[in-house]
């Protein structure tokens, strides 16, 4: 719809790409060499990108937070297999038999106490970390997978394909997303996987596709694309070997935002009691709310604060990593060349 005059910069992401821009390679040489060159260039750009990334202290801090949550997610199955008895520590069906004054405050057997149904909060917290990662990453992969393909295909072919996909994207952005998710989950009792899928599909065919397409357009006019076509590369080859790899940095950026959105959506829907999930951070808060502990202030902090803080920390960590990546991908935001 909007015609961009030539002097208008593309939205973002012209600066660095993971696989280097225009590897001037003699195409007659072997495939192995080519791959090696590619890998070496990719490594170099990664290293450069990392150097820019670490300049943003917030980004590094956020990355560390994500790493801590990942550790938590991995620790749950290990703890369950070693020190935690399943009938006590199972996040859904466990029951702390050692005492009956649930919700019990933190004690040495239950470092974060128990919930009103006698289940160990720490176990729930760790278990949910895993679900949140699965949810966030599934949604992000689906979004970016679809959006990158759609963007690349639309930009490469243009014409009918382009206008069809872009009209679809226009349509999806115009949908009221939160309301739609609420209607869907209220009526269908979605589980985690379907939720991830729906968020992914909505994001993938919607806004993210438009952004990635405009980036793909700028790649399509690069000389090496023409070279690849001239050398007899198939459409498929050009799209998947030349265009999509160059879209990946920007895709990575949007993955981060999708993760934030997905985790947040899950928490809100669970809180409203609309999802069919056995345990998550949102369900933990929901349980506290149903039990009437949300208003108790500091008296029952372990029912609300761990789950609430985890949602906020993980969401904002992904969001801030996304922001920091933005500075890597979009050199106009960098400080040193300002």
């Amino acid at each position, binding site marked *: 719809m*909007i015609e961009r005059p030539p002097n208008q910069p593309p939205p973002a992401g012209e600066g660095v790409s993971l696989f280097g821009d225009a590897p001037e390679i003699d195409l007659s040489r072997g495939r192995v060499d080519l791959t090696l060159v590619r890998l070496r260039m990719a490594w170099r750009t990664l290293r450069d990108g990392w150097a820019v990334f670490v300049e943003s202290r*917030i980004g590094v801090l956020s990355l560390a937070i994500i790493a801590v949550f990942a550790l938590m997610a991995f620790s749950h199955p290990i703890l369950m297999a070693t020190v935690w008895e399943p009938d006590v520590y199972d996040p859904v069906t466990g029951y702390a038999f050692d005492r009956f004054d649930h919700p019990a405050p933190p004690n040495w057997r239950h470092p974060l106490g128990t919930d009103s149904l006698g289940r160990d909060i720490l176990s729930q917290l760790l278990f949910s970390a895993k679900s949140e990662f699965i949810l966030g990453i599934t949604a992000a992969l689906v979004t970016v997978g679809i959006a990158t393909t759609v963007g690349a295909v639309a930009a490469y072919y243009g014409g009918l394909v382009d206008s069809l996909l872009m009209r679809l994207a226009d349509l999806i952005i*115009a949908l*009221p997303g*939160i309301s739609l998710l609420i*209607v869907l989950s209220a009526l269908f009792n979605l589980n985690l996987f379907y939720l991830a899928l729906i968020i992914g599909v909505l994001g993938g065919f919607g806004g993210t596709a438009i952004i990635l397409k405009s980036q793909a357009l700028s790649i399509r006019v690069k000389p090496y694309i023409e070279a690849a076509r001239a050398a007899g590369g198939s459409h498929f080859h050009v799209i998947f070997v030349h265009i999509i790899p160059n879209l990946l940095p920007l895709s990575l950026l949007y993955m981060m935002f999708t993760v934030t959105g997905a985790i947040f959506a899950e*928490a809100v829907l669970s809180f*409203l009691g609309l999802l069919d999930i056995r345990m998550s951070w949102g369900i933990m808060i929901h349980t506290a709310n149903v039990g009437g502990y949300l208003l108790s202030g500091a008296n029952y902090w372990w029912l609300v604060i761990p789950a609430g803080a985890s949602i906020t920390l993980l969401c*904002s960590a992904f969001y*801030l990593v996304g922001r920091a990546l933005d500075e890597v991908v979009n050199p106009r935001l960098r400080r040193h060349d300002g």
Partner: protein
Amino acid sequence: MTSYLARRAGQMVLTLFLIVTLTFFLVQAQPGDYATFYSLNPDIPAEAREQIKASFGLDKPLWQQYLVHMKNTFTGNFGVSFGHYPRPVMEVLAERLPRTVVLFLSATAVSFYVGFFLGKAIAWRRGGVLEYAATISGATLFTAFTPAFALMMIWIFAFKLGWLPVGKFLDPLIWRGAEVSANHVFSYMLATAAVFIAFAFLTLLAARKLGRLGTGRMPFLVIAGGAAVIPIVWAFTGVGYLALDILRHMILPIATLTLISFAGTMLLTRNSMLETMREDYVMAARAKGLPEKVVRDRHAARNALLPVITSLVYSLIFAIDGSVIIEGVFSWPGTGMTLLEAVRSEDLPLVMGSMVFIGLFSLLAHVIVDVLYVYLDPRIRYQ
């Protein structure tokens, strides 16, 4: 431009058509229907249940129901709500819409202003304490668990400190003797806002036309004068105390929404500023030795405003869409609460009606963005 708008309108109708279709079939595909509630109900014999189905039109084949809904939607009549039988959906929505619009327009305006102001500041001083503090607290609040956060705000300000009311949009003890309905007052408030914005806009336009004469503080003084007239006019309407009561109930939700959402505008402004600050004219302005504040506000910020202003519209959509989450906590019975209540009771026409209303709103907002773009950025032209 006209043909563009016409095409855009055509698209809107199509999109609306798809939203209606999507909602209709979603509602249909879910297990159970509205009549299920009655089948599990006390003392309702089979015939009565069949009759209820018939009066809701649920006894007809699916495609007929679909056609009826489609026709209803495009004739501006969304049918009859099940839960408020036999009240028309349109009437239910018309009753709730002003409340949502008043609250979320104000909240978006406030949060936009705060975000823009902070964004400008942190872009100018990169790496300062302010940047870290604003970014981290902004992102944290942005991702704070909204329902719990909103409840905490109520707990602190309405209960512990007792400064503000616990949700709701009015105080029954003040309103029990009132002769006008709350919706009257809401529409007066909307009208006031519209008149004031038009006045401010015209003043600024006039100031621009007047050239040098119109610069400086003059136009702002005129606008402030206009603002001062508002309470005086309201004092004569006799319902001023009712409007004040509503305003008092709006403070807490607006504050909460602002805290939650200012980060988006702030970070966008920051990025936009950073890009603008690299432009030659900003360098030139600096080189001329103009004061920092002038360069920042007059040269950089004004041009950085372009992408940010479009985001204003998006954040408005987001706010209205997100009203589903906020309204319940603040006992603010607008469109969001209506949607939630409708999906929970499977009040099919009301679900459809609210979705179409919210969808229509977001479509309109998108068109406004495109038109604003043309107005603000002379480089863009529509074919």
